């Protein structure tokens, strides 16, 4: 259940009961109001009755007073009479108001009042008569008085009786009302109680269900997470390379078996330590500390590789060459939460690569064996023959001639030998050399091979072009390229060597071309790869790979341009060399 639905549920759980209770309160309020009204009515009736009875009593008092006055002629007997008047009037007024709703009673009251007023008229007359000492005791007048009074009494009795009945009705109404309140309260309370109970139960069930579902989901997710974690842990442990995982601060959180072996620490020691404490890397030659890959990843915020020639120093004092890469670990928002570092021991493969390079150098020499054979054996053979002739007592003139020929041939041998040896001499720093000179010396060495193959060579090297470089290595490159060209051209084929300076004295361009079959496009991609050869068993596949390495080391470039069509076929290898090498690395192939 999502948070919003849950919220709604909770609100319902609280507000509905409150709402229902408010309803109950409203109902009770109405009932209580009704009760008050009913009670008011009852009280009104009571008041009416008391007014009526009171008024009647006062009227009777008035009559008594009058009678007294009639008998004694003493005006003090009229005090009650006078005193009663305003009270009676007031009573009549009140009664008139209260009887406003009851038409029949209103009329009755009015009639009663009229009767009373007429009696008061009679009473006034009597008083006047008494004052005048008139015929106040006249029977007819007393009889009138009594008759009137009886009428008034009768009327009042009716009114009181009616009011009493009304009062009874109203009392009953009040009792009814009270009973109704009690009943309503009980019924409503029970109903509401049940309703609230049912509602709450349903809501709570839903809450509980959703809670259980959430718990289950959390449990299952936690289990998935655990399984996934286990799977990754196993995977990492099984990887043949070393893996180190660091958190966002560069502290080690995980090292697989291989990493522990290579670094010479175990997971327990390394856990929580800064990477630099367990992964101590320096540059192989300068021994300067190399930037920590975690720092590098955090700085560049992308996958990085270590610098070349990095060596890992281990606690036991040994060191190994390593090759590696580091990558950032990000959370859902793309924030860096850690770094994973993968590296491997390349000491063995570096030694192998170096051995390969060395052996390739020797192989190059081997390829020039035709030259060695010829350029050394032939002259020496002549020298041997000449020495034999010298040993046979030649004439002085002949001897001179023989010696001169021998000297010539020996010079040739020395020249060849020197050129061969210079192939192995490596200056420590690059020197300024003339490419024209260098190319010519390579061509000389290959002269025999070209003659044997019947290959014709064209030179297009008008001027000297000077660049900085390692002469022995560049000779190796051009020997390789020219040898390839000669072999591609085949019997009666032709090759050409062209040398030009780049514009603005920026270096040199050398092009070695042959008119052989050419290199098809799909092969051209691979020719610089190590161990790729089209010469079957004869080729080592390393020549162009090493040549490219050497050219890269000189900050130059090498490319192959080739056509394979019947009308136009051949290959040109174009080598570009800068006049000054920008930075000469201490290692070639990578």
């Amino acid at each position, binding site marked *: 259940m999502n948070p919003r639905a849950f919220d709604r549920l909770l609100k319902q759980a609280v507000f509905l009961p409150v709402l229902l209770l408010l309803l109950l309160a409203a109902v009770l309020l109405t009932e209580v109001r009704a009760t008050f009204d009913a009670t008011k009515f009852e009280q009104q009736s009571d008041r009416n009755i008391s007014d009526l009875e009171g008024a009647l009593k006062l009227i009777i008092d008035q009559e008594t007073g009058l009678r007294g006055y009639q008998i004694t002629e003493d005006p003090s007997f009229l005090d009650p009479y006078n005193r009663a008047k305003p009270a009676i009037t007031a009573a009549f007024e009140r009664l008139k108001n209260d009887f406003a709703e009851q038409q029949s009673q209103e009329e009755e009251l009015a009639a009663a009042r009229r009767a009373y007023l007429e009696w008061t008229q009679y009473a006034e007359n009597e008083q006047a008569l008494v004052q005048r000492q008139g015929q106040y005791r006249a029977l007819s007048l007393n009889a009138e008085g009594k008759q009137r009074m009886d009428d008034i009494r009768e009327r009042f009795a009716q009114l009181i009786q009616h009011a009493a009945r009304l009062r009874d009705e109203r009392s009953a109404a009040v009792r009814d009302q009270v009973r109704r309140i009690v009943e309503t309260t009980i019924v409503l309370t029970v109903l509401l109680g049940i309703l609230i109970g049912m509602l709450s139960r349903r809501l709570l069930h839903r809450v509980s269900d959703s809670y259980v579902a959430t718990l289950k989901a959390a449990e299952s997710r936690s289990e998935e997470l655990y399984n996934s974690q286990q799977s990754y842990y196993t995977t990492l442990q099984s990887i043949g390379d070393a893996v180190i995982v660091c958190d966002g601060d560069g502290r080690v959180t995980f090292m697989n078996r291989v990493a522990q072996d290579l670094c010479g620490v175990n997971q327990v020691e390394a856990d929580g330590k800064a990477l630099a404490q367990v992964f101590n890397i320096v540059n192989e030659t300068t021994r300067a500390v190399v930037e920590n890959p975690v720092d590098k990843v955090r700085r560049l915020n992308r996958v990085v590789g270590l610098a070349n020639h990095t060596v890992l120093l281990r606690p036991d004092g040994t060191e190994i060459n390593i090759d590696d890469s580091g990558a950032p670990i990000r959370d859902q928002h793309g924030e860096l939460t850690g770094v994973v570092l993968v590296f491997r021991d390349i000491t063995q493969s570096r030694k192998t690569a170096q051995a390969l390079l060395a052996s390739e150098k020797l192989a190059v020499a081997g390829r020039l064996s035709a030259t060695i054979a010829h350029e050394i054996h032939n002259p020496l053979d002549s020298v041997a023959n000449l020495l034999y002739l010298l040993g046979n007592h030649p004439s002085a003139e002949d001897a001179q001639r023989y010696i001169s020929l021998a000297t010539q041939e020996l010079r040739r041998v020395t020249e060849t030998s020197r050129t061969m040896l210079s192939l192995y001499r490596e200056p420590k720093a690059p020197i300024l050399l003339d490419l024209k000179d260098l190319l010519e010396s390579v061509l000389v060495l290959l002269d025999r091979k070209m003659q044997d193959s*019947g290959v014709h060579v064209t030179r297009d090297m008008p001027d000297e072009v000077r660049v900085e470089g390692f002469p022995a290595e560049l000779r190796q490159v051009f020997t390789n390229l020219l040898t390839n060209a000669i072999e591609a051209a085949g019997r009666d084929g032709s090759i050409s060597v062209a040398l030009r300076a780049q514009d603005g004295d920026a270096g040199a361009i050398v092009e070695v071309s042959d008119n052989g079959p050419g290199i098809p496009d799909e092969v051209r991609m691979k020719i610089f790869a190590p161990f790729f050869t089209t010469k079957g068993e004869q080729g080592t596949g390393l020549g162009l790979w090493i040549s490219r390495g050497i050219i890269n080391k000189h900050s130059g470039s090498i490319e192959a341009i080739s056509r394979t069509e019947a009308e136009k076929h051949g290959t040109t290898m174009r080598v570009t060399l800068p006049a000054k090498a920008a930075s000469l690395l201490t290692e070639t192939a990578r």
Partner: protein
Amino acid sequence: MLCVDDEAIGLQVRKILLEREGYRVLTASNGAEGLSLFQQHQIHAVVLDYSMPGMDGGQVAAAMRQSNPKVPILLLSAYVSLPEEVLAHVDRYLTKGDGAVSFLENLRLLLKTC
């Protein structure tokens, strides 16, 4: 005797050496020239260099065999080993650098047997 070798000085020295021994020597500096001389004169023995421009020693020997299968041919080479098919056409094979004595001795033996 016919000597064929593209090395000018070597050829010259060989000629002197052989003439000192009493042989009459004709020289050629390439296979074609050598073959033409072979046709024109009566040659009793041939000393051939292997690596030459145009036709190599093996090819020259094969051509000579066709015209005169019996003539003794000595193949000289600066190389240490040569393929079988080349050696098939020649009677003897020597590497240069063994010395004049060895060369002359081998030549004498060759001429004696044929």
